[in-house]
Structures are given as C-alpha cells and as structure tokens.
C-alpha cells in the first residue's frame, strides 16, 4: 500500500484533472502579483505619515489599547516608570532590545531581562512584559511582534500587561507593507513566531459580550517615541 502522502497527492492530481472555471473578477494585486501593487479596496492605512498616525490613534482607541506619544527615550522611560508606580507592579520582565533596556532601567520595581532561557513559572509571576516590535500597522491598529523582537513567544502574551516601546518610524501604513517589510528583513530565516497583536486579549464567548483579558494581557500599551 502506498504511503499516505503519495496517496493524497495522487487523489489531488486526479481531482484537479477537471478544471474549475476561473472566477472573472476585477481585482488585481492578489496572488502572483508583487506586494507593491496597491490594494486600494482594503481599509485605508494613510498615504502620509501624519495620516497613518491619525488612523493608528483612532484604531487603537477603538481597540481599547493605550497609545502614549513621547518625544524621546527619557520621556518613554519616565512614562513607563510612572505606569509601574501607579499600577503597583512588583516585577516586570523585558526584552533586551536597546531601547527597551533603556526604558526598563528606569523602572521603580524589579525588572528582569527575559531573553535568556527561563522558567515558565517565573514569567507567569510577572505583572507586565516590556517588548519592542517589528512594526506597527496603522490600517488595523496591529502591532507586529516576533520571537526576535519581543524576547521569544511568551513574554508578549503571558504577563497580565503588555507594554510595547517603539519608534515612530516603525509605523507602516498597512498589512501588506508590514508583510513585505518582514520578508525583506528576515528572508527565508523567519523568526519562529510572528504575531500581529490587535488590542488587548478579548473574548465574546459568553453571550457575545466583550470581555478583555481572556487569556492574554488585559492591558496593552504602545509607547511611540519620536
């Protein structure tokens, strides 16, 4: 008996011998087209930086994520320190990106760089995770983190609060641009995880009523420097 793989491929090839007519739609710029071909039918991500930032602010507000614009690193550090004090955080885990590290050093509580191997239980006990990101998608209010840019897979999802520190030039207009950037940056050596985070964790499973913080962070902060 042939193995399952060969069998399934044989079934597929046999099935596709009869062609299905191609739908005659007008949309171009999908499969087979270079990313740069615009997708002007999707939600707008803004043509200029200012337009993108305005859309981003609006989207994040709707998502109940908190956007904090700060002029420089020092201001970012002050803002996070203030947050930690107000929220009475005991312990914060952070990713060892230079910008994040600068910010973390100003924390008034215990701060732990979680980039080396660690015990899961240790991270579970943290109040907040502090990470950088790959990019920010204005169109949808999404923050793209990766196992490279956020200190692995768990740091941006396990602690109750997620704080992202990024520079304003990391904002891209739309999802297509973010994906193109990722491909250019990592090529065929992609980080093992890339995650578009769009607002704090949520569920509507009980009577379709929105509740934040289902399993992931209840609160999401984006500090945008510059």
């Amino acid at each position, binding site marked *: 008996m042939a193995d399952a793989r060969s069998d*399934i*491929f044989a*079934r*597929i090839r046999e*099935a*596709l011998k*009869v062609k299905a007519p191609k*739908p005659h*739609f*007008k*949309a171009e710029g*999908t*499969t087979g*087209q270079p*990313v740069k071909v615009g*997708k*002007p*039918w*999707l*939600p*707008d991500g803004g043509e200029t930086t200012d337009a993108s930032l305005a859309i981003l602010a609006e989207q994040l507000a709707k998502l109940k994520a908190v956007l904090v614009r700060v002029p420089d690193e020092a201001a970012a550090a002050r803002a996070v320190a203030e947050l930690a004090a107000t929220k009475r955080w005991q312990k914060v885990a952070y990713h060892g990106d230079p910008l994040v590290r600068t910010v973390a050093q100003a924390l008034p509580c215990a701060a732990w760089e979680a980039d*080396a191997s*660690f015990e*899961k*239980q240790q991270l*579970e006990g943290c109040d907040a995770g502090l990470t950088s990101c790959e990019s920010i998608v204005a*169109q*949808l*209010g*999404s923050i793209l983190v990766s*196992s*490279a840019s956020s200190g*692995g*897979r*768990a740091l941006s*999802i396990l602690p109750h609060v997620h704080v992202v520190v990024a520079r304003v030039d990391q904002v891209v207009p*739309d999802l297509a641009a973010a*994906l*193109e950037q*990722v*491909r250019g940056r990592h090529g*065929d050596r*992609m980080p*093992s*995880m*890339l*995650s578009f*985070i*769009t607002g704090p*964790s949520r*569920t*509507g*499973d*009980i*009577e*379709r009523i929105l*509740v934040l913080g*289902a*399993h*992931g962070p209840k609160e999401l902060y984006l500090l945008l420097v510059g």
Partner: protein
Amino acid sequence: MSDAKSTFLKDAAVNAADGDQRAFIRKALGGYYLNRDLQKARFRDWERARDAASLAKWTAVNDLANQLERFTTNFERNGGVVHWARDAAEARAIILKIAADANAKAIVKSKCMTSEEIHLNDALEKAGYGVVESDLGEFIQQLRGEAPYHFVFPCMHVKREAISELFTKHLGTAPTDSPEELTMIARRHLRQLYVDADIGITGANFLVAETGQISITENEGNARLTAALPRIHIALSGIEKVVNNLDDLAVLLPMLATAGAGQPMTCYNTLYSGPRKKGECDGPEEFHLVLLDNARTQLLADPEQRDALHCIRCGACLNVCPIFKNIGGLAYGTTYQGPIGSVITPHLRGLKQWNHLSGASSLCGACTDACPVRIDLHHHLLHNRRNAAKAAPTWFDRLFHGGFDFVIRRPRLFAFGGKVFRATLPVLQKLPLPYLRAWMKTRDLPKAPAKSFRDQWKESRHG
C-alpha cells in the same frame, strides 16, 4: 429515512418551537451585525476585497498539489515535521504516537474544528491523557459534554446563569452573573494548565506555501500560549488551507476578522515557522503538522462545488442564516454547522445520509452574500439536491414530480386540474394530504377564486 435525518427533524422541530432560545440567539448576534457593518464600511470597496480574497483561495485550491508541495518543503526546511493523514483514524493515530513517544501526560488545546471533525479529544482521553480545551467557549462546551454550537462562537447558546452553575459544579467557584467574572474564573483556572502541559495542540487557519509558515487566528491569546509554553506543538489542518503567498494574508486576515466577528483584525494573528530556533529563548522543541484529507479530495474532484474548499471558516454564513438562527447549531449534528456545513457535509460524510441538510433551506441566499470568499453556497445546496435525486430517487418524488411533469406539459389539463383544485380546496384542506396538511397546521390559504387568471383573460379578451 437516514438516522441523521430523523434526529435532525426531531431536534429542529423542538428548537424551532423554543421562542426564548431563538430570541436569545438573535440578541447575541445583534452586536455582531452592528460591528460587522461598521468594519465593512472601513473597507474602501468591500466587493473588490471579496473578489481578491476569493481569487487568492481559488488560485491555491486549483493548484493544490504544487502549493502543498511548496508549503511542506518550506515547512520542513524551517524545522517542522509534516505528517499526512488520509482519514480521521490516521490523524488520530499520528497524534497518539507523537504523544506516546514524548511520554506526555497533559495536553492543552486551542480551538481547532478539524480536531472536532476527527473526534480527537475522545481518542486522547481514552488513551489516558488529560486534555483541556483552552478557548473559553470550547472550555465551556467541554465541561458541558456538548459539541460546539457554532464553529466560531461555540457556546453562544448558553446563558450566563448556566455557565456560572457549570463553573460552580466543576471548578468549585462562587456563583456570579457577570460575564467578566466568569471569564476571569476560566483565565485563572487555565493559566497553570498551559505551564504544566507537555503538548499544545492547535489548528491552522492558513498554510503559507511561499514561506512554510502556518497562520493561526484567535482573540483570546490561548493559541499563543498553547504554542509558546508546552514542549511540543502539534498543529492539525485540512489540506485545503493553503495560500500561495504571504501577501495573500494582507487581504484574508482582515476579511476573516470582519466577516467572522465584526473586527478590523482578530486580536492575535500569528505565523509559526518551525519550533524554537537557535538563539530564541523559548518555544517548543518539536513542531508537528498533521495534514488531513478526510474526503476533502472528493470535494476537490467536483469542479462545480470545488469553491467550497475556499472556506476560511469565518462563520459569516451561519450568522446571517435564518435556518441556523431558528434551529440552532446543535440540530445539524455536524462538525460544521450552517450553510457551509450543509454544503460540505454530504461530501465529507455521505450524500445519502446528509442530503436533508441541503433540503432544509429556503434558498434565500443570505449566506452567499455574506461569504467573504464568494462561495456559491445556496446554489450548491441546489446542486446537492440534484445529485441526491439522481443518485437515489425516492418513489414519492418520482410519483409527485412525474405527475407534476405530466400536468405542466398539458395546458388544458393544467387548467382543468386547477379548476378541480380550487373547487375542492375547502375539502382538501381537511384531508391528511402530504404537504397541504403541513402547510395548514400554521398557515391559512387564501380563499380559492371562482375564476383563474386564464379564465378571466379569455372572457375579457375573447368573450
């Protein structure tokens, strides 16, 4: 009549008569309609976006062999292991073997309809593993011992009081009527389970051929945790989930979120390529992907309905379906409920047993209009009806439609039959005639006119 059909008729009748439950479902969907329309309005051209999404899936499905080959080559290059399963039994055996080899004890799962399709939890529990569903809705359904009601909103039919009772019974928590508090109970309960689990099992929404990544869409973060903390990650996916390029996700991810849940994007859309890489501080040591056929290739072999494999499981067709809203998801008796389930279940599990689902539709077409990838859903119900009638015609249909055929080809007989029908209608309504009695049970018929239109026309024009 098939067993599946008689159960369906019984359950559908009970649920359709439950006005309270129907009102509850309609109310639950009210917020969805509002948000969906708000998000759709943000698309600069929703119809063009549907074209693009449809084309992306058409291109992949109609080149499935090549794209799957390309995907698996890249997936393996990233360090993942691909397993092939012709049917449900093979898929279960593969997963059981991975668990046995790993000496696993505890397994945490995130939402995966394909695992419902192959009845994975039963098999794992029978083999002695502790299995916990981590999606809140799936967790509640697991505690209830009930299949998902809706493949995106698994427990949308359960009232908060029932969930509170359920948690009190199984988790020993104090009663509450707050959805927020109930969610937090589940959150606290499940956190330690992620940490302790040896294996995390997820589904996959898209398999990206270009990069060998799998894409997982969710809102709660439970899939993220399931794929981050346990030592082994197993993803289970149908072979039809392939898309050619990473760029296709720029269309498909927002469409899925908007059509399915009325969101711009769901909270977490995550691409995985391989297990923990060198230099990464966490993540699983092993990453397995089980690719399942389970009769999908039979659907693929039907070019007329091949587009049903474009389905991205957003659930939009259920949310607008008057049948779904009135009989509820459990009455279908299928893994996939609603219009898409009625279309594909006869292909996946047998036309003879499941064609009644295609019959149980007024063919209103709301589903087809809602589908973000333009599956011709309600016309496929017609195609299933045609295929079933051809494969196994019933004596009743032969008699009924044979007689109908005979009459409509003879205008004079038609006119005469009409006259007799009108004259005897008051009597006919009292007789136990098939169809007519079913109609008369809840509805009146207009009083039969003395003269038909053709009689009146003849008199007025030539009289």
